[in-house]
């Protein structure tokens, strides 16, 4: 039976994560986009820059999250020029929340907004499906997040260093990708701090190994 791919939505059913540390945030995501059971893009970049030091992690409908991110990027850029200074992470999160809540019936978008601003340092805000907005020191999202709540709750400590946060995020994402069929590919990580943004990719064969039965 041949099936038309266009009758499916493209989804970022995924695993995304963000962690605050002293001086910035670490964000991470898997790289799989699916249409039904087919992987439309196995190297997706779900960590989207909204401003110089503010990123968002996208999960849910690919079309919806791309459109929302483009709109917020425009609004935040305009706002930043008006203010003539770097925008606050909370402002970016508020813009996401406004859009996601106003159009909650039409949209399917789970977004984590994370970045660094001079006033409050590194911050992570989560805007899940429905349009709530709340600040959390560590946040996970997407279909794969269900599998790692236990791991995250037991392994997170306040006051971790940048390297510890990177290791923590990479391991959590690996565990989720291992168990969730909708997550996979490579692990994309980014560190946002006063110095700027450092991005890295961990390929499939370089992922941390856990013992599996």
């Amino acid at each position, binding site marked *: 039976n041949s099936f038309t*791919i266009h009758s499916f939505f*493209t989804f970022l059913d995924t695993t995304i994560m963000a962690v605050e540390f002293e001086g910035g945030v670490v964000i991470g995501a898997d790289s799989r986009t699916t249409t039904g059971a087919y992987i439309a893009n196995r190297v997706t970049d779900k960590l989207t820059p909204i401003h110089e030091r503010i990123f968002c992690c996208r999960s849910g409908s690919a079309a919806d999250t791309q459109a929302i991110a483009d709109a917020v990027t425009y609004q935040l850029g305009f706002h930043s020029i008006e203010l003539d200074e770097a925008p606050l992470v909370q402002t970016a999160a508020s813009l996401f929340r406004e859009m996601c809540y106003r159009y909650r019936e039409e949209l399917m978008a789970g977004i984590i907004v994370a970045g660094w601003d001079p006033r409050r340092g590194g911050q992570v805000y989560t805007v899940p499906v429905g349009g709530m907005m709340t600040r959390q020191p560590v946040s996970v999202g997407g279909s794969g997040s269900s599998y790692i709540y236990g791991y995250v709750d037991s392994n997170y400590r306040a006051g971790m260093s940048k390297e510890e946060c990177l290791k923590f995020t990479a391991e959590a994402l690996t565990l989720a990708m291992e168990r969730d069929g909708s997550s996979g590919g490579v692990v994309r990580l980014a560190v946002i701090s006063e110095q700027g943004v450092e991005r890295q990719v961990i390929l499939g064969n370089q992922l941390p190994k856990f013992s599996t039965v």
Partner: protein
Amino acid sequence: MASVSVCQYRPGGFSFENCKRNALLEADINKLGFSSPAARKTGTTICGVVYKDGVVLGADTRATEGMVVADKNCSKIHYISPNIYCCGAGTAADTEMTTQIISSNLELHSLSTGRLPRVTTANRMLKQMLFRYQGYIGAALVLGGVDCNGPHLYSIYPHGSTDKLPYVTMGSGSLAAMAVFEDRYRPNMEEEEAKRLVRDAIAAGIFNDLGSGSNIDLCVITKGNVDYLRPHDMANKKGVRTGSYRYKHGTTGVLTKAVTPLNLEVVEESVQTMDTS
């Protein structure tokens, strides 16, 4: 909690379980005078690849209307701008009109900026229009071109999401074509190798997907030059009949001949002139 179920391991390859049953059914059906149902065909194979000097776009040429091939040689690679072309899969009317609208808007934009249009601009315009229509415009596109920032290739889905990648496939034959790409794609290929790769990917779609068929069209875009190769490869040429089925005059003997004239009466005659000036 999800229940754990034991997965039955099935050996790979074709499953011949139903062949005996189908043969019996077909014999029975033919006795009653019916024929077994034919396969339903839908779809397309389109793909694109970025190589050393630019992009190569490829498409098959079959257009289907339900269970019938409506057009054996339709053109699926649409013009967007002198340096940007777009392959379209999905509803033919939607892909045709969408690409024409964006081509027109892009030309006006290009005149306004005074610059050659960029592929990312075409991508933005297409994705914003398709998102506005929430997927009701059934256009799945492969957009490729070369601009001041080099060669670019995008895949655009009917709901408005896009992916920027070095190689993409779309349409019902996309899985067959992607299999070829995943096997043989390398970055920075030469032009001949890239054309061969795209040709083989489309051929995989044509021969393994019921919805794709006929010929292979290619479009090679480089900086300052476009080669629109239509057809690049006639993969399905119609065979030449080896024998003649015409019968000589007198093959069938005429036994009797009866002529019946039909008496028709002209009742009314009126002439309407049409103003064709």
